[in-house]
């Protein structure tokens, strides 16, 4: 009788994961933004209608929707940047880790130190070096201690995956970097003031695919320490980077859920039509 070859060592069986669960929203999960019945008007035009959403902490939440659906407006309301446009009016409540962002006596400046923002087109300050750019937020808020500044400089540039590329050139002008590097510099600049939350308004739309990939990887790393909310018009990017996705249309929140489900089995037919590219 010929002997049978012995079976390879049997590996442990997998946790049988039922299809499509990944991370279901858990009641005990920390909430970064608790938003209820939030509406916003630019003069007579209503840009956001009755939005209610709980954005979880230390996760990446993507906001998708066609042009003009209010996603950028919504993002800017999260750190009161919409106040730069005169004539805006809002209703409803918006809480950040429990504190009312629009309460009486709450200053926008204080909010923005906790909720940072990165913009679509990278904008390092042209008169400043790389080092000065990263530290400008700290310096203008009165931080003088050189040890603290140096530590934050290194930490932020490491977090933005830029340290290795610029560590020997910290005194070169911020504008001497490539587009993707400039955007990472802007991210480092925002991280240096140590916000709890980082908002990103289509951060990759002006970048080439390689630079985009680097920033997408960076976003996934940031998740461990920060809450990230990212507006994107690229569905695949939302699928790659985020844990939760919110779909906005015509100023309303249509659907909000786990990214895995939103792109494989959305609940709302409008969501399905949008992610399939049938409109917008």
């Amino acid at each position, binding site marked *: 009788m010929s002997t049978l070859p012995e079976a390879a060592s049997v590996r442990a069986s997998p946790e049988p994961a039922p299809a499509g669960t990944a991370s279901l929203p858990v009641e005990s999960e920390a909430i970064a933004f608790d938003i209820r019945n939030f509406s916003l008007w630019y003069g007579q035009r209503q840009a956001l209608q009755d939005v209610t959403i709980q954005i979880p902490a230390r996760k990446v939440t993507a906001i998708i929707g066609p042009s003009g659906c209010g996603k950028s407006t919504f993002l800017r309301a999260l*750190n009161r*940047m919409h106040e*730069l446009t005169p004539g805006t009016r809002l209703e409803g409540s918006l809480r950040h880790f429990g504190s009312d962002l629009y309460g009486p006596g709450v200053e926008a*400046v*204080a*909010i*923005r*130190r*906790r909720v*940072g*923002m990165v*913009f679509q*087109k990278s*904008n390092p*300050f*042209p*008169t400043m070096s790389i080092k000065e750019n990263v530290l*400008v*937020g700290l310096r*203008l*808020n009165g931080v003088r201690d050189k040890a603290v500044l140096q530590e934050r400089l290194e930490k932020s540039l490491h977090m933005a995956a830029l340290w290795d590329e610029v560590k020997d050139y910290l005194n070169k002008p911020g*504008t001497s970097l490539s587009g993707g590097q400039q955007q990472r510099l*802007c991210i480092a*600049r*925002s991280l240096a*003031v140590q916000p709890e939350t980082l908002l990103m308004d289509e951060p990759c739309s002006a970048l080439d695919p390689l630079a985009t990939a680097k920033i997408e990887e960076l976003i996934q790393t940031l998740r461990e320490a920060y809450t990230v909310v990212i507006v994107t018009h690229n569905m695949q990017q939302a699928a790659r980077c985020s844990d939760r996705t919110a779909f906005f249309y015509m100023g309303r929140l249509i659907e909000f859920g786990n990214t895995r489900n939103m792109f494989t089995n959305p609940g709302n037919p409008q969501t399905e039509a949008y992610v399939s590219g049938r409109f917008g």
Partner: protein
Amino acid sequence: MKSTLVTGVLVVCALAVITPLFLVLYFLLVNGWSSIDWNFFTQLPKPTGETGGGMANAIVGTITLLTMASLVGVPLGVFGGIYLAEYGSDIANDWLRFAADVLNGVPSIVWGMVVYLMLVVPFKTFSAYAGGVALGLMMVPLVMRTTEEVLVLVPQSYREAALALGVARWKVIMVIVVRTALKGIATGVIVALARIAGETAPLLFTALGNTFWSHNLKEPISALPLQIFAYAISPYDDWHRQAWAGALVLMALILALNITVRVLSRDRNKTH
């Protein structure tokens, strides 16, 4: 055929514009160059009738007056420009710009008369202070408008980026926006200086002029335009000669200022 004719006409017009500048420089050089010597820059004017001497005090006086004018004109003009660009309501700002434009058109002699009433009569003396203030006030509308224009050119994205870092608005404006526009603001200031450097009328009622060194800003002070005027209308040939020299030096000063402006502007274009 027609296009050649039009081109020809345009070329002639362009030459017609440039020609006076060359004429000015030519006459100044022909008449004044021979009188430029070490004495001219180091000696005081001689008493009436005597030959020789120089315009040392006038040159120093002009520089002094321009410095004092800057102390008045730059802060008022720059902050006024900042206000127009960054603050204020649309209606208030419109009126402010209108006022600035009107002020720009006020005849320089009127400025002199006003400052005479403000600073000469109460103190019962002509002074360098009065001259500086008069020139400075003339600078203000120019500096204000150019500052505003340059600030408006700073992209909004820089303001937003700085605000998003949690920096107070006034700091954003002073540190980020103004710093970005600094070259443009400096350019505006220098243009204004070049404009007032040759003003004579306001100084007639304020600085008055001085044949000696001024040791005190509360005293009358000499200035190139004043000295040139005094010499030019005199009957003495020697003084006429010196007047030409003075005019040449003044023109050189203004040219130097304008060239500085050019150099600054070119640098700005390169880095962007």
